[in-house]
């Protein structure tokens, strides 16, 4: 574990739908520059936790702090300001279907910066090239495959050079080479731009390749297990986590 300051601090978070508690007592810290993995099986509450981290669903209890600032306690305008420092990549890309890829990536830049259109176009081209979609600027999402939509979603998430990238299932539905390329890109963004990255995933290869710290959400007990570095957890972790990381083999 590094001794650096926590970039994201989650304490005693409980997420519930009415009386149904999805997860309770979730606490973890993400250090600046980490690739933090939230892992767990289907229906364990990974995406619900992500929604609490990005402001889409207020948790039933607990706190989420970014750089010490309580995300859910601050005024709405402050929360909106904090959200602009987050880049979110949704599972299916969540691209706006009526806009081209270039327009999808350009929209946050046009809304929140005063960059001239020519500069925005340059940045958009670079971001799309970074995810391997150079030349697809004028395509609409409906004309792309699932993997391409996902990569375009990452380009949009990176548009404003956010401090924190939150990525939901980056490699599901991608071929192994594209998934590997996306993993490399995530690490390059962390190393080059200093971004802190939170990845929600159940893809074992990806978890082991990029994760530097992690938690495991247990769908049976509705609680979390702190797992540290996934590669360490694979060898010496909690039996339940090792069972998961070895696809039921341990």
């Amino acid at each position: 574990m590094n001794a650096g300051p926590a970039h994201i601090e989650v304490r005693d978070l409980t997420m519930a739908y009415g009386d149904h508690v999805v997860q309770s007592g979730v606490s973890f810290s993400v250090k600046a520059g980490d690739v933090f993995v939230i892992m767990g099986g289907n229906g364990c509450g990974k995406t619900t936790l992500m929604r609490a981290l990005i402001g889409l669903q207020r948790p039933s209890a607990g706190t989420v702090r970014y750089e010490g600032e309580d995300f859910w306690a601050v005024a709405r305008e402050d929360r909106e300001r904090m959200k602009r420092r987050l880049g979110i990549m949704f599972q299916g890309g969540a691209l706006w279907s009526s806009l081209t890829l270039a327009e999808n990536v350009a929209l946050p830049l046009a809304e929140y910066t005063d960059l001239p259109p020519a500069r925005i176009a340059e940045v958009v081209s670079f971001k799309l090239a970074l995810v391997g979609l150079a030349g697809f600027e004028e395509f609409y999402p409906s004309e792309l495959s699932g993997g391409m939509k996902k990569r375009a979603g990452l380009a949009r998430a990176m548009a404003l050079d956010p401090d924190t990238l939150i990525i939901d299932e980056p490699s599901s539905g991608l071929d192994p080479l594209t998934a590997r390329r996306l993993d490399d890109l995530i690490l390059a963004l962390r190393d080059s731009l200093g971004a802190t990255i939170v990845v929600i995933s159940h893809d074992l290869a990806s978890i082991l390749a990029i994760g530097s710290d992690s938690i495991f959400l247990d769908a049976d007990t509705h609680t979390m297990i702190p797992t540290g570095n996934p590669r360490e957890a694979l060898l010496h972790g909690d039996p339940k986590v090792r069972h998961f990381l070895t696809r039921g083999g341990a």
Partner: protein
Amino acid sequence: MTSVAAPPAGREAGGKFEIRGRAEDLLVVLSGRWCLGRNLPSRGALEEGLGAATRRIAFDASGLEAWDSGLLAFLTGVLKTCAARGIGVDQAGLPEGVRRLLAMSFAVPEQKLAGRGEERGGFFVRVGKASLELIRGAPAMLGFLGEITLSFVRLFGGRARFRMSDLWLEVEQVGPRALPIVSVISFLVGLILAYLGADQLKQVGAQIFIADLVAIGMVREVGALMTGIIIAGRTGAAFAAQLGTMQVNEEIDAFRTLGISPIDFLVLPRLLALMLMVPLLTLYSGFVGMAAGLLVSTTIFDISLFEYYNETLRALELKHFWVGLSKGSVYGAMVAFAGCLRGMQCGRSAEAVGEAATSAVVTGILLITIAASVMTIVYYQLDI
């Protein structure tokens, strides 16, 4: 030596570059804070500094204080220009992170895709294209009509595969659940007809004929027309959106791969439900319209309840009901055809579902209007 700084503006001081060296071998010295929110020089300024004799450029980033996508986007453009002009680029002087991200951005070659961003053309070009699309769409429409016909043949032969529960669900959706809106619209249309008639008929002292106007008008024409238009907006759009979403989710493909006709399973119940329920709604609409006429006549125009009732009975013949019911059936079939056709033709995006719903309503109302005109003329010629 050329030195270019960002033009001073409202933003904070940003990055700048300086070109050093001889014409064929240049060194680009980057300094300052190359971040997006700051003033940054344009790529054009650097490109102007590259002479015809330039063969190689290198970078010195020792004075670089901070960088983000602002620098990366700038350098990407410079690298593309150098590649186009055959100028070699030595990236060794750039920060390691910059080199890594630039390498990733050039790892997949840019796709040169024909036909993208083509111009829309002038007014006549667009009208021409739209006309051609309409003509090209005609065989698909006829094909769909043929598939429905075959589906009906299978239905009467007892071989159509659909679930009766789906049919009853559709019947409930398009019939009983449409009663409130049909009631309100029919009542108001009946009221309008009564006022319209009263205004004209009082000039010849024949206000009692309001009953004839409202009864025949509502039962023969207006009840069916209003019901058809309501159903086109309410149910036709819903059919297109439901089937369109199923198209997006590949549910229709799944039916086909199982050898189940989506026309039998999805279109037939919807078509039958509308053909059964729209005539009944038309009949209901006629009675609600007559009730509105009765209310207006007895409360505003001093016609007694008994007089109005008798005049209505005298005016209405059975043939008027048959005409209204036949029109209702045809309008129902038209709305179902338009809704299902547009839903089955839907593209594979959320936007396409919206377009399918809009197109279903427009096509439905157009078909209803054409059918209403043709049937009115035919019934007149046949003296029905």
